[in-house]
């Protein structure tokens, strides 16, 4: 880095810090925790989204939206270091946490990589202003880890495409505006060669959004049923039948999670998505002096520190070319496994309050329910098993798994007795 840009960075940091301190409110940990635990009702959730849209707009107006995005598309045209400086200054302040993943990354990131000029100029500024909220229509009920095995079908009809099928595990589809949708446009070629990506407005006829109830009562995820949804060909992203090229990059952005240079979030402090800390549970159980509990607290702290430094190392490795894009799967794997362990730790510290509790149990209340959801972080955004496939095959170069579906027309691939069990559930 030259002295020039370093100075610029310092000035930028000062400007950002000043703006943040005078315009944003301090982070409300309790509110965030309640939101994460799915304790908001529908109205409260919509109000929170509306507030975050306003935060996006304020940042846009102040020149802090899309820091690494070109000014052509409404961004600031600065470096990842500037984004990092902004994130550092943002620590301890409110921020549009729900509108980052998947809205900016992977969605805006994919648009920037593959969109036409027209598409980018229309949608990127709208995203940065908080006017358009995007989500991803990627997974399918029949698909599990096999994203490229999408059954949702798009059939061409003149200048339009007609989509039918079902997508699942979409975060917040019920309050979003647009979706990025992977669909099958050719059943007569091997699966990776018959896919295409479309932009899909969610409030259109034929798009039916259902909220899914999770074990802990959260309804953050949705399933969508698409029935004869019509999309103009101008809303296609990338080439026809070349959607897997888009999809591969899309999933890379997904694995980057909060390490993408498009993401605005506090660099330090408890991450927005953190649940209750082991120290709080131990304190509310009166077990802070128990060496066994301290062992668990220490282990949790260790995993936290290693996880964050690993994220940084992987991000740096990908950025500098020491690691292929696929290296992001290493951090995704570690994060999933460590996160599951962290939930086990708080459950263990809760002791018998893990089975039954009242509000008098403080932070120990509800740890049993948390524990039921432990694997969510090893499933969502691509399972840890898929991450292990990617690491072994794409990072370490080990032989690919035998595939029975790689070189045959997709329509001939065995799909098993349960493939459609949930598609119309």
């Amino acid at each position, binding site marked *: 880095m030259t002295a020039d840009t370093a100075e610029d960075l310092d000035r930028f940091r000062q400007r950002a810090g000043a703006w943040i301190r005078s315009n944003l409110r301090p982070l409300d940990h309790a509110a965030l925790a309640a939101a994460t635990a799915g304790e908001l009702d529908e109205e409260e959730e919509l109000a929170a989204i509306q507030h975050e849209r306003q935060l996006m707009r304020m940042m846009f107006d102040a020149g802090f939206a899309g820091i690494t995005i070109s000014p052509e598309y409404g961004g600031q045209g600065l470096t990842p270091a500037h984004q990092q400086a902004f994130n550092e200054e943002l620590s301890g302040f409110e921020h549009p946490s729900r509108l980052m993943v998947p809205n900016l990354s992977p969605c805006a990131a994919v648009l920037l990589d593959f969109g036409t000029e027209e598409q980018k100029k229309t949608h990127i500024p709208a995203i940065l202003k908080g006017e358009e909220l995007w989500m991803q229509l990627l997974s399918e009920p029949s698909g599990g880890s096999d994203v490229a095995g999408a059954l949702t079908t798009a059939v061409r009809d003149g200048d339009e495409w007609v989509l039918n099928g079902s997508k699942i595990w979409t975060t917040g589809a019920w309050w979003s505006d647009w979706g990025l949708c992977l669909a099958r446009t050719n059943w007569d070629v091997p699966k990776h060669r018959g896919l295409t990506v479309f932009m899909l407005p969610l409030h259109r006829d034929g798009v039916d959004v259902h909220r899914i109830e999770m074990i802990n009562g959260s309804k953050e995820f949705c399933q969508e049923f698409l029935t004869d949804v019509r999309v103009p060909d101008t809303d296609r992203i990338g080439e026809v039948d070349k959607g897997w090229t888009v999809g591969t990059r899309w999933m890379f952005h997904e694995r980057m999670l909060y390490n993408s240079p498009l993401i605005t979030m506090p660099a330090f402090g408890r991450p927005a998505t953190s649940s209750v800390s082991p120290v709080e549970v131990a304190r509310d159980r009166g077990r802070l002096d128990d060496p066994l509990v301290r062992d668990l607290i220490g282990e949790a702290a260790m995993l936290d520190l290693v996880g964050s430094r690993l994220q940084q190392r992987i991000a740096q490795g990908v950025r500098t070319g020491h690691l292929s894009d696929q290296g992001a799967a290493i951090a995704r794997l570690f994060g999933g496994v460590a996160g599951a362990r962290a939930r086990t730790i708080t459950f263990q510290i809760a002791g018998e309050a893990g089975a039954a509790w009242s509000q008098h149990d403080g932070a120990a209340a509800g740890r049993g329910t948390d524990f039921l959801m432990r*694997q969510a972080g090893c499933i969502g955004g691509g399972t840890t098993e898929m991450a292990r496939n990617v690491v072994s095959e794409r990072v370490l170069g080990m032989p690919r798994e035998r595939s029975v579906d790689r070189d045959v027309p997709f329509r001939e691939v065995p799909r098993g007795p349960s493939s459609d069990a949930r598609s119309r559930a």
Partner: protein
Amino acid sequence: MLLELTPDQDFLRETTSKFLASQVPVGEIRRLCDDRLGYDPGYWKRGADLGWTSLLVSEERGGGSVSGRGLIDLTLLAHEFGAHAAPGPLAPANVVAGALAEFGTHPDVLAALLDGSAVAAWCWEEPGGLIGGRELELDITVERGDLVLNGRKKPVEAAADADHLLVTGRSGGGLTQVLVATGTPGVTVERLQSVDMTRRYAALRFDDVRLPGESVVGEVGGAGPAVERQLHQALVIQLAETVGTLDRAFAMTLEWAFDRYSFGRPLASYQELKHRFADMKSWVEGAHAIADAAADAVDEGRPEAAALVSAAKAFSGRYGLELMQDCVQMHGGIGVTFEHDLHLFMRRATANAAIFGTAADHHQRLARITIEEDSRS
């Protein structure tokens, strides 16, 4: 569960299994999630008719077992309860009935427990847990022939809606058990939220609760051995139930692995998953083996009962829950939805793992036993 059952035992197990499948299918359990009691009183009475409540009670006191080893028969029922995530106060009803029968007190209460028209709660656990080394604190003092109770119990299964509470407390250097009718002045009940769908726990406070002398079960200050035996019984029932949930979850997941295709072939064909199923199978069989060994030793009153019970509890508390989470992981996204049935069983296993001592608590207990044995040898 035992590999070999007598024809009578198999009949008992089979009858209960069919009854549970028809009376409390998963839809009914979802409905009961919002029910105050967590079960239908008629269901419980019909269960009592099937023999659910009488197994720890001798024939002369109105009970009876099918094999002459009531606790072993009871593990068969508990296994089915686990395999169906079934509702109903199986453990407290039996443990309290067994205690009343042993000491020959409160025959009317015993009769009502046996026919399922009344329910009792076994009030032993205290906040913070008692297995890890903490001393029992609820105080029972004798004052002019009366008994005065002060202290807390939490969490206690079925306590909020029970008719009777069998309360364990400390009287100076020894333990005492008293039977308390619900509604007795000075008893405060707080309903707790539970990780389980149908099991209801409560926290109890006793503030100068005064009871007549005949409330005692056994002798004042002399209840230690009986309480330890009841704890072992409660754990044996809980362990058998947990093994039932593990069996069921494992079977569901195995079936899913054969049915579900990914990348054109069944999940069951992927070596990494196959190997995890192999580990899970070794855990399921290990849980069966140690739970049965514990039941056998408790039933016969052998000295190694304490070590076996704690080993079983530590094992199923740790490996059993890991197995459940592996089942979730193999199911993928639907495994963490409310709609899928898997969580019904995981909830029961999770509650059981946290009640009557965590795996870590039982490690401490096992360490104490092991060190004592070692210093004697």
